[in-house]
C-alpha cells in the first residue's frame, strides 16, 4: 500500500492518450522497484471506463474510473480536488503525470494542495533504495539534473516520448471513484475547444518531425513540408519562430527555447538556419537531417546528415524517394 504509485492517465475524446500509456509504463517499473502496485486514475464522460483494458495491458493493476459529463474536457479544479483526495486516502508513495499541457497544469496544483514539490518534465524516474530519483533536462537541454524527491507523496511529470511502452500486462481491475467536487462548480470555465484536424499527430508523440523555416519563403510553400510529412506516414510538422511570428504556422507548432521541446527519432530541418534558440528545442532528436542552401548554416553543425541546396528542388525529390522507400517496405 505504502509503495503504490498513482498515475493520472490523460484521456481526450473518450480515449487515453499515448502519454498516458507511457506514464503507466514508467510507474510500472517504479512500482516493481519499490514492491507496490500501479493504480491509474482516468477522468472522462460516459463510457470512459472502456479504456481500462488498455491501461491494464501496459501495467496498471487497478484502474480508477471517474465518469462524469463534466469531465468530457479537462476540468482543472475538479480533477485536482479528486486526485489530491485519492492520493491522501490511498496513501500512495508517488503520483505520476504526463508532462503535457494537462499534466503540467495539474501536477503543481496537487503539489500545493499536498504541500510538496513537483519534479517536472523528467525523462527517467527510478527507485534508489527508498528515494525516488529522476532525471530532468534543464537550461534548454544543455544540462541534465539528477534530482531526489524526499517527501511522500513524490510528484513527478514525465516528458512525452521519453519512456517506451513495454508489455507488462496486469489485471486493470476497474473501480469507480466519485469526483471530490461538482465539476460544474469550478470557477474557471472552459467555453470552447478548437482542435486543428483530429487525426493530426502531435509534435510530442510523432516519431518523425519535418520542420520548416523562413527558407520556405511563404506560408503556402509549407504544402511541400506537409507532403514530405505525409510521405513518412508518422510525421508531424514543426516550424521556427520566424515562421510562427509571421503567422505562416500556428504558435503551437513552434519548436525551440520558447516553443516546444521535442526528441523524435528523426528531425528533418528544411530551410532553417539553426539559431541557438531553435536548436534548444530539437538537439535531443536521435537523427537530424538538414536541408539548407547555405553550406555554412549553423544547422549543419548539429545535423547528422546534410544536403546543401534549394528546398524547392530537393523536397519534391525527397518526398518521392521516401514514398518509394516505404512502398518497398
Amino acid at each position, binding site marked *: 500500500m505504502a509503495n503504490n504509485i498513482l498515475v493520472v492517465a490523460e484521456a481526450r475524446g473518450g480515449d487515453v492518450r499515448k502519454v498516458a500509456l507511457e506514464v503507466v509504463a514508467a510507474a510500472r517499473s517504479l512500482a516493481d522497484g519499490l514492491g507496490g502496485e500501479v493504480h491509474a486514475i482516468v477522468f472522462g464522460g460516459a463510457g470512459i471506463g472502456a479504456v481500462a483494458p488498455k491501461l491494464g495491458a501496459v501495467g496498471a493493476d487497478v484502474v480508477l474510473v471517474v465518469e462524469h459529463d463534466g469531465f468530457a474536457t479537462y476540468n*482543472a479544479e475538479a480533477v485536482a480536488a479528486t486526485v489530491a483526495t485519492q492520493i491522501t486516502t490511498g496513501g500512495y508513495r508517488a503520483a505520476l503525470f504526463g508532462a503535457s*499541457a494537462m499534466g503540467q497544469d495539474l501536477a*503543481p*496544483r496537487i*503539489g*500545493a*494542495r499536498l504541500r510538496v*514539490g*513537483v*519534479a*517536472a*518534465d523528467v525523462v527517467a524516474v527510478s527507485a534508489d533504495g527508498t528515494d525516488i*530519483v529522476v532525471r530532468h533536462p*534543464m*537550461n*534548454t*537541454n*544543455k*544540462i541534465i539534473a*539528477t*534530482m*531526489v*524527491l*524526499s*517527501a511522500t507523496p513524490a510528484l513527478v511529470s514525465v516528458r512525452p516520448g521519453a519512456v517506451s511502452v513495454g508489455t507488462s500486462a496486469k489485471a486493470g481491475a476497474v473501480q469507480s471513484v466519485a469526483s471530490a467536487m461538482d465539476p460544474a462548480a469550478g*470557477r*474557471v*470555465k472552459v*467555453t*470552447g*475547444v*478548437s*482542435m*486543428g*484536424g483530429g487525426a493530426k499527430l*502531435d*509534435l510530442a508523440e510523432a516519431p518523425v518531425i519535418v520542420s520548416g523555416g523562413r527558407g520556405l519563403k511563404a506560408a503556402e510553400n509549407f504544402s511541400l513540408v506537409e507532403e514530405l510529412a505525409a510521405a513518412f506516414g508518422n510525421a508531424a510538422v514543426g516550424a521556427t519562430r520566424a515562421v510562427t511570428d509571421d503567422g505562416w504556422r500556428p*504558435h*503551437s507548432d513552434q519548436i525551440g527555447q*520558447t*516553443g516546444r521541446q521535442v526528441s523524435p*527519432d528523426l528531425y528533418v530541418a528544411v530551410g532553417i538556419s539553426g539559431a*541557438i534558440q531553435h536548436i*534548444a528545442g530539437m538537439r535531443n532528436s536521435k*537523427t537530424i*537531417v538538414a536541408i539548407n542552401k547555405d553550406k555554412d548554416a549553423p544547422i549543419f553543425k*548539429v545535423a*547528422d*546528415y*546534410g*544536403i*546543401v*541546396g*534549394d528546398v524547392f*528542388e*530537393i523536397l519534391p*525529390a*525527397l518526398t518521392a*524517394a*521516401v514514398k518509394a522507400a516505404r512502398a518497398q517496405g
Partner: protein
Amino acid sequence: MKIAVCIKRVADMGARFQIGADGTSVSDAGIKYDMSDFDEWAVEAALQLNEKHGGGEVTVISLGPDAAQETIRKALAMGADKGVHLKADRIPFDGFAIAEALAAELKDGAYDLILFGRIAVDSAAGVTGAMVAELLGLPCVTAVSKLDVNGAMGTAERQVEGGVETLSFPLPALCTIDQGLVTQARYPSLKGIMAAKKKPLESKPAQLGAISVSVRKMELPPERSAGRIVGEGAAAVPELIRLLQTEAKVL
C-alpha cells in the same frame, strides 16, 4: 488594475554551460543574466492590459540573490511601477519552496491579476505559478496565449496539444503566460531607465517553504558527434535515403 508579475533572473541560454565545482550547480563563470523570456512577456502583457484599460499599477516581484534587483530594475524601466525583491542567496529547485515565499508576499497585496511566465527557461519546471494560485485560493489558467479582462471577468486562450482551449474566469485570478500573447516585449527606453532608478524597490528576506525536491548531480549531455554533408541538390537524395535506412535505421 492592480497587477503583480513574478519574474526570475536566469542565465543567458546562449552560453556554453559548465558544471560548478560542487557538481550540483551551474558554474557562474562567464555567464550573463537576464529576465526569463516568458516573464518578460508577462511584464509586457501587464503593461498592455493597463494601457488598454486606463491606469492601474504593476508590481514586479523577484526571488533570488541581490543581483535579482537588476532584473527588477529592467522591468521598472519597461514601465512597471514598483518592485519587491525577496532575497534568497540561492534559488531552490523546489518550486513549492518558492511558491510559499511568493504567496506570503502576494497574499495581502489586493491584486486583481497575478502573472507569471509559463516556465523559467533555466530550471524548466513550470510549476511555481499554479502552486501560488492554489496557495492563495485563486482561479488559475496556465500557458495563456491570449488574455483579456472585462470588468470583473477575464477570458483566456491556452494552447493544448493540437488545439486551443478558451476559458473564462472571475478576478482576482492568476495566469501563466506562454509565447504568442505578445510578439515582442518592449525595450527599456533611456527615459525609462532613468525613471526606474527612482521607483520604489523594497528588499526583504524570502520566507521559503520546505524543500522536498533537490539536485543530487548535474551533468552535461553527451556531445552530438559531428555530422556530414551528404551532397548537393536533389542528386544527394538517394544517398540520404540509403543512410536513413541502413545507418540511422529510421526509414
